[in-house]
């Protein structure tokens, strides 16, 4: 669809139009003209919205939907629609479905489900067969089918030698290996952060050590094996320090942090509300401060909503029995924009694209139009009416947030 975007503030530090209010003409999926004022001579669809801002399309490196196998949580179709309305033009889809996405035909299946959608679905293939952390899955074959990275989602790689081999093997074809940072023996049966809250509530705690010990191990292995490592959703101050040191050594490592781990501390657990049962667990303000510092100095490369829909049956039970996870696509930008400046928030939502093989295009004439439209100033309390996902398990319900996505222009389609 050809469109004319009117009076939009460009937030794109790589563009010469950054911070300028301009009209943007999009024809055949490309930005054909950017100017102070463009006349709509061809009678294109005109988009004029309150306090409209545009940026490069946003990307999320860790999203779960549920299809195949858990369609009652979320389907790929509705999940991608939710992503589009929430401002994301590409998402990396985790392989924790049933069956697990661990073959090229599985990768092809999820890609086929996304074919007509404006949002790019970037499949993550399982690192090991059935994500059992025993034998490597056919990584090369999955990469050729379109897998952008390899991960057993929240299942840690328990065998250090397996990680070593995975990194060495995947380096043959520039494959990105993800290793969830959790040392299971130290974590034991811990389900929340080990701190005052867990002590007060009698819930089993998992200490920061359970994360940082695994991060330290993984970085040692990476230093030996070479290859490309991504450590998803770190949550502790110790992990930030370890990754900062690894980057100083020029190791090829990236990491992400889940937005809820930046926004909420474990204090919210006091009513045993299962919406806050997430993995990694919500930590302390000390950890949040270190994570924000890590974001500012570039130690942390990207943020993720770590979107994980769970049905009411999986959440409305005793805390011990509830599944982990919160949805996060709908609240991602507004929550980030509450913590950081809009410029920084956008940077965090676009920075991981290259690492995960998503298209990157600037807001410049001649570039492919892959754009998010948003209003950074609108303040609101996040409620059920803001949820577009099939599952409603959001840790952000009731939180005051700032800024809303209007939608996207991507793959020659506009979603508002």
């Amino acid at each position, binding site marked *: 669809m050809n469109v004319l975007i009117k009076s939009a503030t460009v937030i794109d530090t790589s563009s010469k139009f950054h911070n300028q209010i301009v009209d943007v003409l999009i024809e055949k999926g490309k930005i054909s003209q950017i100017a102070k004022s463009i006349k709509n001579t061809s009678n294109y669809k005109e988009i004029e919205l309150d306090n409209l801002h545009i940026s490069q399309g946003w990307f999320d490196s860790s999203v779960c939907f549920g299809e195949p196998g858990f369609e009652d949580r979320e389907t790929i179709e509705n999940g991608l629609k939710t992503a589009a309305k929430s401002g994301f033009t590409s998402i990396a889809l985790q392989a924790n479905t049933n069956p697990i996405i661990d073959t090229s035909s599985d990768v092809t299946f999820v890609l086929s489900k996304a074919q007509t959608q404006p949002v790019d679905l970037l499949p993550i293939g399982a690192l090991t067969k059935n994500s059992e952390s025993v034998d490597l899955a056919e990584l090369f074959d999955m990469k050729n089918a379109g897998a952008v990275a390899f991960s057993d989602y929240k299942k840690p790689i328990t065998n250090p030698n397996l990680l070593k081999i995975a990194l060495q093997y995947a380096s043959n074809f520039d494959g990105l290996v993800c290793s969830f940072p959790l040392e299971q023996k130290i974590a*034991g049966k811990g389900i929340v952060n*080990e701190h*005052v809250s867990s*002590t*007060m509530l*009698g*819930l089993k705690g998992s200490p920061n050590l359970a994360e940082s010990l695994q991060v330290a191990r993984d970085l040692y292995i990476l230093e030996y094996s070479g290859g490309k490592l991504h450590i998803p959703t770190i949550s502790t101050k110790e992990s930030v320090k370890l990754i900062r040191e690894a980057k100083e050594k020029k190791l090829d490592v990236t990491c992400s942090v889940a937005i809820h781990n930046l926004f909420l501390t474990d204090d919210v657990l006091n009513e045993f509300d299962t919406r806050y049962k997430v993995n990694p667990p919500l930590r302390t303000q000390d950890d949040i401060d270190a994570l924000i510092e890590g974001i500012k100095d570039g130690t942390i490369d990207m943020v993720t909503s770590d979107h994980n829909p769970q049905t009411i049956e999986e959440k*409305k039970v*005793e805390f011990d029995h509830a599944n982990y996870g919160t949805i996060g696509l709908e609240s991602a930008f507004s929550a980030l924009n509450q913590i950081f400046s809009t410029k920084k928030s956008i940077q965090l939502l676009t920075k991981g694209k290259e690492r995960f093989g998503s298209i990157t295009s600037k807001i410049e004439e001649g570039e492919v139009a892959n754009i998010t439209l948003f209003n950074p100033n609108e303040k609101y309390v996040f409620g059920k009416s803001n949820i577009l996902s099939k599952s409603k398990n959001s840790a952000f319900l009731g939180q005051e947030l700032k800024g809303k996505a209007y939608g996207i222009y991507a793959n020659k389609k506009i979603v508002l």
Partner: protein
Amino acid sequence: MSELSVNHLLGIKYLKEEDIELIFKTADHFKEVINRPIKKVPSLRDITIANLFFENSTRTKLSFELAEKRLSADVINFSAGQSSVKKGETLIDTVNNILSMKVDMVVMRHPNPGAGVFLSKHVDAAIVNAGDGAHEHPTQALLDSYSIRERLGSVKGKNVVIVGDILHSRVALSNIFALKLQGANVMVCGPKTLLPKHIDKLGVKVETNLRKALNWCDVANMLRVQNERMDISYFPSTREYTQQFGVNKDLLDSLDKEIIIMHPGPINRGVEITSDVADSKQAIILDQVQNGVAVRMAVIYLLASKIKN
């Protein structure tokens, strides 16, 4: 204060100091009642109480049932072994099914921390937490404080040490909250592996030497080692645990002052305390049991009055 500030007893941390005072004043009255020849009052003839025990219990269940019967409430009992829980029914459905038979109050023991809090948000009945995982066991803490008050006049300013498996203990946690609320000084003592790492942040002293702890305290509350809750060994052997954290008569006699020994039961004789300590005049273990009935009568009576109002 003539009524409780809460509609449920989910934990001590949800109570105010005045709530505890009111419960104790009411318990004083009921203690007098249960020592009469006719140990029963007609107060709750119009109330039906369900005792839901999703985890094994002997003394707590008996104590609650007796308290309810002494108040003339109608009582039904339910335990997980005979229930539909094993058929996959959720906790909310199980309880709502029971409540639809016109039950006013639920006394629940459950293996999961927060089960009582969870239930109170989703069903329409007063909930009394009779122990939820390693979270709270509020009536035990209330009867413990009541027993200290009975023996020493008050709890305020007293030094109380809780000895043993603090990590897996709801009794320890509720006692810490209750004692602190009433102005006692609280210490925990045990092997470091059985002390929660952040327990000091609850405002308690931490000691790993039993003799030092006992020399400091007026009251020692000896907890049972909960082997059934341990996923790995937190100490090499019971023998070695007893060597370091068991109280025997020689140790007790060698202290500078005569301290009071408490135990929530069931006792592992020869492990946390020896028989001669358990049976000595310093031990108030059986007083605790008797006070348990009076305190539980008080809690149920006060919560029932809120339902009636």
